[in-house]
């Protein structure tokens, strides 16, 4: 529901199809994912086993949840580098509540994780939007602050003592044979996809990211909207924290300081623009899958760990270059259409 409906002229079906393809930058990325899976399967048929694919999904579920919210924020023209810090702080807060030997500790602990994420997210939102500070710097500072507080609260170590019921009924539960964290990721993705494509909130989100001043002139309260999206990113980091403690039975701070790399990479590989206005939830899911499949498949092929990091980095760069190239083609195509209309 972004440029496709806003841009003029869809009468010429050939040009419409061309624009449609150009507007769906994650299609070739999906092709790359499938090709990658074919190659990994040829190299080691165990790659394609249901168990392995479900394991990859479970391993990527936290990154995926944060990448979904990050996609919405990037489309709106913001960025949040503190997702890993919010996850770590939320996990530690929840784990500390779980240490209290009371029946209410479980629900309150879960709530504490969500609230912690949302509170930090709102701080990010107010500082960037109302204090008019650059989000890159604000959220980088917030990464340091959240990680520091999380270390302080946990005395620098992991906090165990996570209720067993969290892992048995969520972290390692498999309703319909699918890991529960993967189902949660897919459910959140479905909700956000509908919100982005079919609600006023979604249309505003694209409009603000494409041209904030134009959106504001047409009566959209961009500030309020952006703060809401930052809060949502914090909330989703809190959800990722719930998945994290449920799967690892420990709240570990060190593990999440570089999460933001995978989160932003997934969104960008999936075709979300770092400059706002462009992006799809489906694309981000493909981006998340690519990162998970690449890591798993390269290990299966016995590739040395350092080369895996190189491979992921190269893939991100190539995806960026491709999206940049396609974007310039798209803009050129649009300006030709406009010219054509003007001449008529």
């Amino acid at each position, binding site marked *: 529901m972004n440029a496709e409906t806003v841009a003029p002229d869809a009468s010429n079906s050939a040009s419409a199809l061309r624009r449609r393809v150009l507007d769906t930058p994650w299609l070739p990325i999906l092709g*790359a994912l499938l090709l990658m899976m074919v190659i990994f399967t040829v190299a080691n048929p165990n790659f394609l*086993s249901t168990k392995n694919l479900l394991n990859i999904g479970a391993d990527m579920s936290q990154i995926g949840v944060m990448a979904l919210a990050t996609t919405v924020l990037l489309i709106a023209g913001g960025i949040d580098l503190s997702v890993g810090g919010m996850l770590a702080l939320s996990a530690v807060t929840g784990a500390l509540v779980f240490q209290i030997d009371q029946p209410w500790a479980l629900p309150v602990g879960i709530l504490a994780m969500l609230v912690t994420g949302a509170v930090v997210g709102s701080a990010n939102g107010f500082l960037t939007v109302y204090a008019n500070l650059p989000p890159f710097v604000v959220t980088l500072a917030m990464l340091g602050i959240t990680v520091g507080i999380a270390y302080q609260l946990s005395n620098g170590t992991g906090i165990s003592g996570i209720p067993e019921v969290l892992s048995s009924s969520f972290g390692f539960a498999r309703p319909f044979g699918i890991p529960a964290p993967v189902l949660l990721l897919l459910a959140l993705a479905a909700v956000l996809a509908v919100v982005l494509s079919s609600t006023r909130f979604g249309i505003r989100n694209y409009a603000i990211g494409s041209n904030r001043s134009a959106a504001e002139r047409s009566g959209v309260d961009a500030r309020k909207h952006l703060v809401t999206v930052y809060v949502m990113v914090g909330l989703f980091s809190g959800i990722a924290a719930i998945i994290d403690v449920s*799967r690892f039975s420990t709240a*570990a701070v060190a593990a999440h300081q570089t999460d933001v790399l995978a989160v932003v990479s997934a969104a960008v590989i999936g075709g979300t623009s770092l400059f706002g206005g462009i992006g799809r939830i489906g694309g981000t899911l493909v981006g998340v899958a690519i990162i998970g499949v690449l890591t798993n498949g390269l290990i299966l092929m016995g590739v040395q760990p350092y080369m895996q990091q190189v491979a992921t980095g190269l893939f991100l760069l190539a995806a960026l270059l491709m999206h940049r190239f396609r974007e310039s083609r798209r803009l050129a195509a649009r300006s030709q259409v406009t010219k054509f209309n003007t001449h008529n």
Partner: protein
Amino acid sequence: MIKFHAPLALVGVLFLAVGCSSTEGASSSTSDAAESAASTETSEPTRIAYIPGVQGDAFFATSVCGAQDAAGDNNVDLDVQVPAEFSAQAQVPIITAIIASAPDGMIVFPDDPVGITAALKQAQDEGIVVHTLSADVEDKSARSFNLKQDLGVGGTLAGEEMAKLLGDSGATFVINVKPGIGSTDAREAGFRAAIEAVPGMTYVGQRFGNNDPTESAKQVTAALQANPEIKGIYATNLFAGLGAITAIKQMDLVGKVRLILHDTTTEEVEALESGAVDGLIGTNAYSYGYSAVEAMLQSLDGQEPTVTLPSEVFVTKANLNDPDIQAQYIYKNACS
């Protein structure tokens, strides 16, 4: 159209590139194995995966050298996969991928006593024999064997050697890493016990440098200001040690305050040679890797592993160049 093929082409290039690197690693171990294991030349190699704690760590890098040599000596196809960071979150995806590659055995240095349990159990469910190395998981049913060394022994050795250096009289101090790390906490406890066992020696206490040389230097400086009677310092790892060296130099106390560092990285050996440090506690990291593969082979043969790990040694300028010390106890940046 080019734009459609860009990511596809990249996939191809990536596989060419990593394909070269992977065949290089894998074939070298199998060909080494084929050369040296003449008696078992015709049999299929045993497939073992080794997952150390973290990348960029001299201890683990040296243990990999030992594991590779053991693989070469025993017709083992060894797959080494190292997590990018020291956490269950980084280690579990590696374990799950290794499960899919279905090796006969898996040796893991656990990055978390709880967080990797479910993944290890999944590996066991798939028929993979799981051993833990050095550290262990809380749920002992998640592995069939733990090859370990008493973690406090190195600290005890440091305490005993410190007492000798100071002539059984003087105040001592520990610059530690972070609270809650099993190995370094045990070193501090071992050191403290050894010092307190000597009547003329006293123990001032410990401070934490957060695994950072700069922070460690600050902490040591502050401790020496507050307790000028300190005559001996034990640093429980490389970064704590680098900080202690800096602090002692900037306070002009070289030779007046004796210093023992844990581990034998290149930086620490250089400090020993330059006289900034009196001694190093050397761990036989090479044999951790070598023995881990041997223990796994015993398990896969249906035996109870009988392999043990050698204890730490005190490395000084005097014995630094002994061939045994050089071959076994000095950490390596690359396998020979």
